[in-house]
């Protein structure tokens, strides 16, 4: 697999990651899908191996890798074939812990990041609200400055890990008049008074991850739990979202490939009208079309990863990768399911799960439409239409 982007050391890490996924995660997929969450001891076991901080310095318990290593981990994680597991783990490490590492104080890092990387506490990022959807600037959760800190009031929707998390990184506006420039991030402990899990959402897919609606009812947040600069939240979120998009695109490519591989395996084994399914030209060409679709997403995702890894602005590359991969993985898992016919519709075949899991990719992390808005603006096509 060594090529212009991944070298031998990445391939070696991929082998390790694959083994970890096969041993620690794969055997439990059905159980976690049914239960609706990844158990906390799994976080701890992965944390001991450093897999909750692939990209984080070793001093915090991470593996000291870089974006390429984390990409390898994300891809292998996706190949477990249950997007919810990746969502739960990435919701914790990629979008939950990363802000603590990037903008946390030494004290915050010791208190939250280090146990987080060890898997001793589970993190979640709470941004989206019922009213706002993709419009972060419109968020209504308010952090009123009070003596010694802030008082948090508002609710959050679609919070991955929101039910099980021990700490929440919450985006709230300190000054609504400043719109997106009024947003700050706060580290909120789940056990604090006023933090309420309103409900666990019942989802089409990603069922191994819990998704919550949360309510912050006058939660007192001490000043030392402000994360980074006051009013810095919007920029921080953009950085987190950028990497999230790249990882979503990479994971989508890996999942789509797995779906096609299983469809090919089925097409080779299954006979219809007296010959194997892959004896039908339409089946073969259909699988080629799916492969071409994957390849397009794959190179876009790799480009975004590479540009980001180079340290350049990857906004455009990431938006393209996420937009394309989100639509691709939906088409590809759908096409792969079709190859299985009636069996594709049956629960014992995992393809139905890939297909359900795939459907979120064009919605979560910014919809395809939002990605296109970013491109419209950043490619200089027109003014931002949504605002």
């Amino acid at each position: 697999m060594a090529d212009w982007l991944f070298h031998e050391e990445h391939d070696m890490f991929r082998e390790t990651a694959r083994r970890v996924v096969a041993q620690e995660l794969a055997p439990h997929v059905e159980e976690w899908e049914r239960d609706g969450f990844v158990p906390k001891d799994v976080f701890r076991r992965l944390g001991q191996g450093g897999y909750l901080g692939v990209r984080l310095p070793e001093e915090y318990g991470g593996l000291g890798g870089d974006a390429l290593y984390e990409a390898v981990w994300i891809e292998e994680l996706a190949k477990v074939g249950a997007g919810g597991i990746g969502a739960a783990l990435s919701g914790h490490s990629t979008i939950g812990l990363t802000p603590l590492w990037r903008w946390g104080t030494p004290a915050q890092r010791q208190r939250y990041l280090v146990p987080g990387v060890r898997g001793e506490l589970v993190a979640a990022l709470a941004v989206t609200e019922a009213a706002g959807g993709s419009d972060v600037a419109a968020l209504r959760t308010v952090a009123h400055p009070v003596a010694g800190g802030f008082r948090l009031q508002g609710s959050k929707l679609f919070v991955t890990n929101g039910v099980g998390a021990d700490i929440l990184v919450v985006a709230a506006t300190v000054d609504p008049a400043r719109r997106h420039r009024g947003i700050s991030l706060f580290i909120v402990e789940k056990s604090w008074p006023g933090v309420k899990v309103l409900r666990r959402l019942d989802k089409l897919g990603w069922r191994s991850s819990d998704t919550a609606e949360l309510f912050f009812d006058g939660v007192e947040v001490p000043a030392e739990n402000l994360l980074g600069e006051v009013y810095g939240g919007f920029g921080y979120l953009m950085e987190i979202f950028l990497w999230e998009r790249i990882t979503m695109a990479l994971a989508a490519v890996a999942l789509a490939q797995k779906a096609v591989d299983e469809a090919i395996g089925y097409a080779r084994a299954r006979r219809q009208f007296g010959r194997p399914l892959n004896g039908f030209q339409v089946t073969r060409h259909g699988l080629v079309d799916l492969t071409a679709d994957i390849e397009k997403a794959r190179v876009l995702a790799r480009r975004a990863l590479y540009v980001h890894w180079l340290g350049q602005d990857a906004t455009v590359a990431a938006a393209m990768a996420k937009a394309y991969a989100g639509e691709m993985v939906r088409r590809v898992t759908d096409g792969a399911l079709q190859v299985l016919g009636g069996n594709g519709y049956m629960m014992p075949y995992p393809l139905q799960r890939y297909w359900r899991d795939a459907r979120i990719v064009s919605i979560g992390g910014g919809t395809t439409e939002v990605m296109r808005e970013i491109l419209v603006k950043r490619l200089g096509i027109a003014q931002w239409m949504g605002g």
Partner: protein
Amino acid sequence: MPYPPYFTAEHDLFRQTVRRFVEQEITPVVAQWEEVGEFPRDILRRMAELGFLGVHYPPEVGGQGGDYFMAVVLAEELARSGAGGFPMALAVQTDMATPPIWRFGTAEQIARYLIPALKGEKLACLGITEPDHGSDVAGIETRARREGQGWLIQGSKTFITNGPRADFMTLVARTGDTPGYHGLSLFLVDLDLPGVVRTRLDKVGMRSSDTALFHFDQVRVPQQALLGEEGQGFYHIMWELQGERLISAAGALGSAQYAYDIACDYAKARKLFDRSLTGFQVIAHLLAEMATEIEAARQLTYETAWNFARGTISAKDIALAKLVSARMVNWVVDRAVQILGGHGYVADWPLERMWRDVRLNRIGAGTDEIMKEIISQEMGLRNS
């Protein structure tokens, strides 16, 4: 409002009646049915009372004597429950497993199976597909051998809607040694007979309908179990499939229209970046395109139904209507999910369920690919 040339004021009235029934007696409880994986059998009797089970059957067998467009109305409106499972189960009962009894059955078979089915007293299922022969009717391996005064049935059938609880099955089995399309016959099989083994199957959608895998282990049925002519089973079942596919197309129209209505209402009400979602041209145009796609499938299905009712129809026309409507409803519901964004992905709205349910339209009653084979054959493309 009458809708020439297809619907009269009478159809409209029936539509309103069904819509009200669905809103009051199905939509509020269908989530429970989905949860437990089956509908309650009571509902069939209730619908029979309301005259919904035999809309296009003649009064002498307990039907309402309506025209085929009454069946279209029923299929469209039932789809507005937001769950495809129960309507599918019902279609099996009224438009798949039973029409061959009416068409090919003896008076005794009609009295014993069709009339109780249309009263909601007996639950019917249809046995065509086999584990090793998804869409390939010619490949059927289930055998019925003459023995004494009756038949001995041996074989398996799968993906059988209503199977876990059905009272009888309209079954296709091989009665002759000629391979392929010849040598198949239909049987009406009571499912409480010794040797009938059912295994419940777990599906990703259509969960308010239950599905089974059957194994027939030397099941002994009487001579009178034979439905229609011996050796004509393939042609009988091909005739049945026409109605099955057409009613599936009609159901797709109802589902798509319902998904469109939900998405359009949502988009009008939802504010983003200080305007309603329909204020974004890409969303507005998408809805316009969805409406156009629905309309194309609608007109194709209606035209086909019009010809079907008059008997001037080919398997190709029906396959086209089924193919087009199945692809359409999948696309429309998928786009509706996209418009709702995260809300489309969670069970607070019926769309995630509909998205799972309508996927079966491209697989059941013959996959897209099988439809294309049928069409290409009638286009004279297949055998040259």
